């Protein structure tokens, strides 16, 4: 299924359709209305070696699940350096029951970079049997970098499985020392840990050639 996403405000994904796209350093501001049985899988990638260091960007995705048995997967990865500022907003609305949504949003921040994640999730009063997970993990590598994370969950149905988690931290000092004790420089050890953190998201990209290409471009292997 191809949606014309250029200049788009709202698109409808019809019954049983599947839309999958990787936004690589592209502007994202979309609203998708999902009809019954449709599937959305979106990656939003803001990656350093591939873009201007000091950009400001707002990524925004709005999803309305309007029919049963819809699936929504949203993955985000932003690796920001310099004075880059990236906000990623997701608004996932389960308007009917028996739908699934999964979100994994990660930020890696260096220098004076600023990251912000706003994750709004609504499960309507009648939307029973929804399964919804939202995870936000952030790695802050510099004292001058800043991460703000705002999960907003509004769950009005009672028979749902919903989980969310957000954490912001630094690299694991014990792991760094362990690697240094094996002769690996601190810089390389940091790189291995950051790569591992990023690979979690990269690994979820379905298209193998694109995944391999990113792994090579970013020297993640």
């Amino acid at each position, binding site marked *: 299924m191809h949606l014309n996403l250029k200049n788009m405000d709202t698109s409808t994904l019809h019954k049983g359709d599947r839309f999958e796209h990787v936004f690589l350093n592209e502007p994202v501001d979309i609203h998708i209305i999902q009809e019954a049985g449709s599937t959305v899988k979106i990656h939003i990638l803001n990656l350093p070696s591939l873009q201007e260091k000091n950009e400001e960007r707002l990524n925004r995705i709005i999803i309305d699940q309007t029919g049963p048995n819809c699936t929504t997967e949203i993955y985000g990865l932003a690796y920001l350096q310099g004075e880059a500022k990236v906000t990623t907003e997701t608004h996932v609305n389960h308007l009917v029951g028996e739908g699934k949504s999964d979100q994994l949003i990660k930020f890696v921040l260096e220098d004076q970079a600023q990251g912000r994640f706003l994750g709004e999730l609504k499960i309507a009063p009648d939307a029973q049997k929804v399964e919804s997970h939202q995870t936000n993990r952030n790695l802050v590598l510099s004292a001058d970098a800043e991460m703000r994370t705002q999960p907003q969950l509004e769950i009005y149905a009672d028979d749902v499985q919903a989980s969310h988690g957000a954490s912001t931290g630094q690299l694991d000092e014990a792991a760094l020392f*362990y690697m240094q004790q094996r002769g690996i*420089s601190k810089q390389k050890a940091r790189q291995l840990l950051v790569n591992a953190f990023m690979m979690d998201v990269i690994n979820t990209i379905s298209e193998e050639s694109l995944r391999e290409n990113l792994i090579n471009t970013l020297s993640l*292997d």
Partner: protein
Amino acid sequence: MAKLLEIKNLHASIAGKEILRGVNLTINEGEVHAIMGRNGAGKSTLSAVLTGHPAYTVTEGSVLLRGKDLLAMEPEIRAREGVFLSFQYPVEIPGVSMTNFMRAAINEKRAYEGKEPLSAKEFLTLMREKRKLVEMADKLSNRSVNEGFSGGEKKKNEIFQMAMLEPCLSILDETDSGLDIDALRIVAEGVNRLKTPHNASIVITHYQRLLDYIVPDFVHVLADGQIIKTGDKSLALELEEHGYEHLT
């Protein structure tokens, strides 16, 4: 016999609390030294200080490795100079595969020695050969470093890494803790097979048990941050029988 390690009047503290209070120890090539002592005597602090753990501060004294100032080196340089610590609690590193981790370690050491990196084939051959030494399952090298490894697998993995890196000074910090008797035997045999006339080991342990398998040339008793007694392997047996009480 050439001197490998010379520790002189070593004092070290963590968070302002002095743990080592004047340790003196000389280790020659080919020797195995056991360091025994109660919890809190400073055994693990000694291994942390020798490997350059950032939480500890050396306040006095010196440590020379083959005549070079060990304390002036970054942790990774100490490692590349041949100091290896088998961790009491090996760290799990999710997402970093054993293969990538080991390749980075080997090739950074080789670069430090002015050698070319190993080819992929040479590296995998070396991994396979060294895994056999500790009877480590092949599948473990595809996993993340120590992630989901059992206690025994973690300790075998430490000795496997030691075999890969061929250190001149190995510090085995409580390598026997959490091991059943079979795993202990495998780990100890691995250590023994890695012994050469030019390398040396420091074996830190609470119990005499490990020293049945890795036989020390010297046994030192550490108490309150100092070595208070040195003997041969019979000292370990004596401690097993009478405890540390009569020494302190």
